[in-house]
């Protein structure tokens, strides 16, 4: 060890001379302060973006359409895979990791216990996310990105794509009074592309008819049938469309309670029909059509033993 403990006397002079020669000076205090505050600022930003991601994530998750997943997907798993906002899940996770990294690299970041660092990054993001969600920021950001980018699909667009699927008996739009287009025994439903669909309303309950008559935008489940010897579309379920404005929690709860009341009587029937369909493994829906009945169309007769809505062309997400 003696060789290593020998001091090399010229080191000090060499260093001082080099400092002099190369004009090396200590970096200013301002530089280090800026460095430190930049890290804290970056931490704040990652927490903010993490909170925003969580706000969109929670908005997308809450308004994913759980209540009607049987109508749009084969089972809950396929519904989740199709509907979960994975992009925001990844974004929120990344932001939380980045905020952890930033706080760790501040001057004293290494001294804080891991639980505190993780807890503060995660905690502030969740807290911020909850506040932003409450304020509707998740909805606005999601919708804004959907409008600005062709590659980003907002929850609104997703829901519209899912429900504007005539081939599978689902439509989004609003109803017009029967006399507007001359539909008989029912109403005309205009989908989001403004195509008219004459519908029979004999299968609808009072509340559903009321919702339709209000002229508000709704989601509609329908079936084709030749019941009564006449081929026609039958409206089987009407559900409120809630994504054109910030869906406040209270309003959502109110609508949901109303919705539950409205569909409870039908739910059991739908479930039976779906189970029957699954057990028979028959192809989706009778005479799937992508076109409204405004011209002569051949509609396959459906063997019905429980009314026109007994066999609904349910699920099929595209």
């Amino acid at each position: 060890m003696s060789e290593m403990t020998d001091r090399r006397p010229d080191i000090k002079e060499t260093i001082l001379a080099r400092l002099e020669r190369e004009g090396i000076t200590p970096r200013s205090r301002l530089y280090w302060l800026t460095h430190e505050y930049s890290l804290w600022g970056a931490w704040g930003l990652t927490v903010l973006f993490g909170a925003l991601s969580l706000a969109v994530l929670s908005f997308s998750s809450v308004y994913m359409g759980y209540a009607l997943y049987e109508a749009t997907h084969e089972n809950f798993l396929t519904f989740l895979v199709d509907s979960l906002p994975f992009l925001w899940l990844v974004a929120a996770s990344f932001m939380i990791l980045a905020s952890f990294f930033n706080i760790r690299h501040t001057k004293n970041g290494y001294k804080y216990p891991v639980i505190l660092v993780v807890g503060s990054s995660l905690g502030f993001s969740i807290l911020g996310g909850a506040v932003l969600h409450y304020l509707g920021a998740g909805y606005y950001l999601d919708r804004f990105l959907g409008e600005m980018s062709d590659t980003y699909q907002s929850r609104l667009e997703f829901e519209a794509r899912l429900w504007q699927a005539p081939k599978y008996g689902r439509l989004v739009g609003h109803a017009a009074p029967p006399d507007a287009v001359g539909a008989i025994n029912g109403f005309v439903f205009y989908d989001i592309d403004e195509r008219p669909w004459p519908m029979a309303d004999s299968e609808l309950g009072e509340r559903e008819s009321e919702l339709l008559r209000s002229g508000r935008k709704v989601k509609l489940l329908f079936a084709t049938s030749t019941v009564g010897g006449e081929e026609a579309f039958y409206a089987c379920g009407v559900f409120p469309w809630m994504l054109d404005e910030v869906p406040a929690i209270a309003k959502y709860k109110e609508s949901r309670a109303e919705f539950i009341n409205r569909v409870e009587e039908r739910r059991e029937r739908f479930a039976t029909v779906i189970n029957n369909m699954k057990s028979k493994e028959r192809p989706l829906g009778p005479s799937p059509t992508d076109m409204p009945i405004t011209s002569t169309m051949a509609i396959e007769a459906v063997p019905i033993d429980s009314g026109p809505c007994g066999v609904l062309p349910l699920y099929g997400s595209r």
Partner: protein
Amino acid sequence: MTVIDGNIASLSDNELVARSLEERAFFGELVDRYQAKLGRYIARLGVQDPDDRDDVLQDIFIKVYKNLNSFDQSLSFSSWIYRIAHNEAVSWYRRRKARPEGYLVADSEAVLALVSDDDLDRPEERFDRDIDAALLARELEKLDDKYRDILLLRYFEHLEYEQISDVLKIPVGTVGTLVHRAKKQLKKNLENLAIKT
């Protein structure tokens, strides 16, 4: 350069840092104080060639000087300068692509201190008797970097857990865990060696 008074040796490290920011010549005293210690430390970390060591030492002190304003007076200067030395040494052998083998000089006093340390889970008695400092040093070299570095700081540089925490920028609790695991792995390696022989 102004004349530095004769009481310079009585100044604390922190005072010298403050004075160095005003007058470069004071920095020479800091170099004097840490040159030998850091020389030994970086040699243990793998910078063995005297010329290389001088180069790395120069880089360390230049970096220390440039970063003087970032020194947190609430920390010990010793921990802070060890941190810079550690990082520079690691950068040096990363530039060389590999950490050289056989770099850990068998410092019998330090090695025996490691073995007899109260914290250490005592190896078997036969092992106590037959221990060979050079053998232990060789086994130390075989440890994972994170374990070897922490034992080196604890038992060769005699730093406290808090200082090690400042040098390696890890929480104090993690230092304790790593020291414990490092000793456990070392003990296991030595026991395996004893069984083989």
